[in-house]
């Protein structure tokens, strides 16, 4: 995990997110390494998803949300970036596959088109490349004009990954991407993540502890404080967190004593 092509992709400092008066997460300070998979685990309601949505400022969409502190991506505070530019670089995969009710082709071409690409030849190239990256090309190459909703759940989720890849991000945020899928489809996604981490920085929220242990390089454990605000308990290499955690709380959680 210490080869030279890893660097600090994100630096998070004193991050707090409020929904109105309710503080969802407080005082998070950590760094996210590039070209690695960082998983975020913790009990329900501990602010994992809120934390994830801070990276592409999806929290801004919810009225009355206030974000304090800093998320610095490649030495730039993301609050100072144009939100459209930020989201181009930071793709997101949701818990439930959410392909648009359009053809498979149009789904993948959606992002590039939204950013003004018109050339059909280039679009075809991007669609094929993205679908190959998401290991879906072989299954759909003959039915690109068919509705995306005709695909199975696992295929839909890989389509959503292809759709995110089509805008050439460098970071992928995943909010429990496999929790709505059957075990085989879920495993396929995990294998895909191992491929993708060569080129992307991946942050994944998961409920599934085996998945975190199996698939991720770093693990952050969040918990809910007495005031119901989420906070970071422990953050280290995955193997350390799962075999020799520093905090008692982490050990209790990963051994299934609460959560």
């Amino acid at each position, binding site marked *: 995990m210490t080869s030279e092509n890893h660097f600090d992709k994100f630096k998070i400092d004193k991050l707090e997110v409020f929904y109105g008066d309710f503080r969802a997460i407080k005082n998070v300070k950590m760094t996210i390494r590039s070209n690695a998979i960082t998983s975020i685990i913790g009990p329900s309601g501990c602010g994992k998803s809120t934390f994830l949505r801070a990276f592409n400022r999806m929290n801004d969409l919810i009225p009355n949300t206030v974000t304090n502190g800093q998320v610095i991506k490649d030495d730039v505070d993301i609050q100072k970036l144009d939100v459209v530019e930020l989201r181009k670089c930071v793709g997101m995969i949701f818990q439930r596959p959410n*392909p648009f009710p359009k053809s498979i082709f149009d789904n993948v071409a959606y992002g590039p088109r939204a950013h003004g690409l018109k050339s059909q030849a280039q679009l075809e190239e991007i669609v094929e490349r993205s679908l190959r990256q998401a290991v879906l090309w072989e299954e759909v190459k003959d039915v690109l004009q068919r509705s995306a909703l005709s695909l199975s759940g696992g295929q839909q989720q890989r389509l959503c990954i292809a*759709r995110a890849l089509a805008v050439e991000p460098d970071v992928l945020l995943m909010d429990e991407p496999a929790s709505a899928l059957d075990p085989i489809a879920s495993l396929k996604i995990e294998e895909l993540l191992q491929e993708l981490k060569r080129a992307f920085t991946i942050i994944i929220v998961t409920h599934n502890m085996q998945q975190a242990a199996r698939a991720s390089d770093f693990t952050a454990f969040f918990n809910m404080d007495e005031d119901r605000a989420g906070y970071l308990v422990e953050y280290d290499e995955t193997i350390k967190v799962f075999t020799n955690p520093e905090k008692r709380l982490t050990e209790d959680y990963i051994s299934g004593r609460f959560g």
Partner: protein
Amino acid sequence: MEAQSYISLAKTKKNQKQNQTGQTLGYILVWACGFAAIATVFWIIGYVLSQGFQVINYEFLFTRPAGGVSGEGGISTTIVSTVYLVVLTLVIVTPLGVGAAIYLVEYAGDATKESKLVAFLVQAARTGVEVLAGVPSIVFGLFGFSLFVLYLKFGFSLLSASLSGAALVLPTIIRTSEEALLTVPRAYREGSLSLGATRWHTIYSVVLPTALPGIVTGIVLSVGRIIAETAIFWVTLGGSFYLPQSIMHSGRSLALHVYMLASETRAFDKAMGTAAILIMTIVILNLGINLLSRRLTARVSGK
């Protein structure tokens, strides 16, 4: 324990028999109501059609009304006027109504949280829409007559009529479009925004296409309303049976023609003939909507 005793009670033969009698009675009652309702509908349609078809022929369809108390002539210009009226009204009301619905669903939510004044205005707009939906059409007619016909000096014209008609169906379009937009899953919006699409691009390329079947249903309902209304157009469209040469000319829609024939002439048979054409138009329109909205829904849901 109690649930069990109910079951054992129901199992006794006497009870079973009572249940069955109840079932049969209920079945007969519901069946009779359904039959009566459907029979009435078919009777009305059948009566109008059978009466109407006695006067419908090539000449009736393709000559204009001649006026006078005898009700001579056909209905050609009223068909054309109806088409003009519907098209012009839709051109005015669709962008207005759908645009208002987009504002209410996609933007108003945020705005209301930022300003109390906006919140109040939006609530007032919603209430206004609700109230307008229940106002009789003649009230819109009087409004159109005083504003468009007299004050703005549009006279009895297609323009005055279309503007008044637009006001009449605006609440329908806003409400159906609003409901259609609300059924679009939030996941679509988030998916689009997370790809770096702008808010407007998201609305235009994902939200609107997904809501289209619902929006189209609202538009077609409005078309039916415009075709069927008389009072509002009586005071705004005038009643000229000549072919309108421009949107500033008066005209006569089919429904208005039926009303005028029935109330001012002896040609009751021709009123029936016109009514038959009107009914057929509405039937065809309804079949058309069903087909269209089924197609659109199929396209959106990917079957």
